[in-house]
């Protein structure tokens, strides 16, 4: 098997294992601990907590803010109405944009409230989402390496 393909398999396997571990540790293992052994982030030193919480919440607020900005732009952008000949379907995007704004506002408020009361999930969900996006991208690249032709076309040689 060519070397790149071996590394491709390694990337796919390692990301799958890591993704599994992230999910298991954050949601299954720790959920039990919270419920039964009473893991409490309030017991952690403030500095330690915010050293993790601030960057995570900043990234999360940026993502949620982008969602809100998209909805707000669709709601408020002023454009000339389309030519009747091309307006054959009813456009529901303003209604959807309104709900996107509402959803992102609620989500943002919930996240900030969660951080302020040092809720475990306010950290765990964004951390897992960011990790899974990066692992997902590496998994995707790994699959692409495995499935891509490993020999150079004639003109590239």
């Amino acid at each position, binding site marked *: 098997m060519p070397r790149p393909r071996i590394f491709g398999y390694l*990337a796919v396997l390692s990301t799958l294992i890591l993704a599994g571990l992230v999910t298991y540790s954050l949601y299954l293992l720790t959920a039990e601990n919270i419920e039964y052994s009473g893991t409490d982030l309030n017991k952690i030193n403030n500095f330690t907590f915010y050293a993790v919480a601030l960057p995570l919440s900043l990234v999360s607020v940026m993502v949620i803010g982008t969602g809100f900005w998209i909805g707000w732009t669709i709601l408020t*952008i002023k454009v000339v109405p389309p030519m009747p000949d091309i307006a054959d379907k009813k456009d529901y*995007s303003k209604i*959807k*944009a309104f709900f996107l704004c509402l959803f992102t506002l609620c989500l943002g408020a919930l996240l900030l409230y969660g951080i302020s009361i040092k809720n475990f999930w306010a950290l765990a969900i964004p951390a897992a989402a960011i990790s899974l996006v990066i692992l997902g*991208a590496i998994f995707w690249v790994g699959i692409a*390496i495995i499935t*891509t032709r*490993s020999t150079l076309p004639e003109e590239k040689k």
Partner: protein
Amino acid sequence: MKICLLSYRGNPYCGGQGIYVMYIAKELVKLGHEVHVVAGPPYPFEENGVIIHRISNHNYFNKGTNFIKPHKPFATLQPLNLYEFIAAKFGIFPEIETFSIRAFLKLKELLKTHRFDIIHDNQCLGYGFLLIQRLGVPFVSTIHHPLTIDRSTWFEHPSTFNLKMKRILYYPLLMQKIVSNRMYRIITVSHNAAFEINKAFGVDQDNISVIYNGMDSTIFYPVKGVKKKKNSIIFVGNVEDRKKGIIYLLKAMSLTRHPVTLTIVDGGAPNRSSVPRLIDKLGLNGRVTFTGKIPIDRLIRLYSQTEIAVLPSLYEGFGFPAAEAMACELPVITTTAGALPEVVGEHMKTGYLVPPRDAPAIAQGIDFLLDHPDIRSTMGKAARQRVLEIFTWESAARELVNMYREVINAYGRF
């Protein structure tokens, strides 16, 4: 002078920015300057005296699955490439931003052996430019038009919520606003574009220099002895670019008295989705021909075989297709939007101007010009004369050099 031009896409076939870089570089060399071009793919053609430095890019945004290069299978896992890959998968267009960072790294390396007097960017304005400004070389940028216009004209068309989301993510407006306000000077290609840049990005009008684009009248000229096709019109541009206003031209075709036939010179089949449906809907099948990408000599021949060029744009920062047609002595029907009146000139003398988004007015213009071959001929000749007098790359390069000197002198005072 030692000049470094930056362009995230350098090939003249990829649009106005590639044409701009190619001609400006060529003319600056003719004026005796040393010109380096730092460009991303598709790369510019080799020109005598122009030194090209290539910056690679994986084009993740446009490649669905086939993005692994067999000779560099792990390139995607490098930090900047991985960022570009993830951003592209979320619908963001990261090419501009990543080019600016790669250009900074390249310039850092080049400055060890070359002492540039000025760096001139072409419509990129990525965050990496804030780093380039720390290199101690005067840095200016050309903005052909602000992308806010592309976004708003795109929103004029009904589309799904998902598509609208994608379009909002696609245009890096915030980044360009931040960076454009930090450049030593912004250059633009028309007074209207200067006004729009000020409106969209808040760049001070005093910090914007207007230098018109040129037109190569030795390439674009009327081919003698070519017979015109009766009732023929031509449209040159990307039909999926909503600001080109092709839908208004198609609607106009359904309103004309003459049975006009339209030739569309566009980017090829992958760049057509809504327009063929509209052609069906308006009953124009058999009257519209798509050429796809064609070489310049065929385009010039097409201009010479056609009676009228129509550019129904909702906005143009300059409008190369109008100037090309004019250089080929073709009467142009175009709109009063953007910089088109600046380029085309006076209504009924060097062109035929109609309000934007006005299909009946376009139809009226087509019928009028088809009814009056003598006016067509006079208008075409006057149009070419206007191009020869005002829009030359040589004068564009000379004005640029004067502006470079001004910026370098001002920079030296700090």
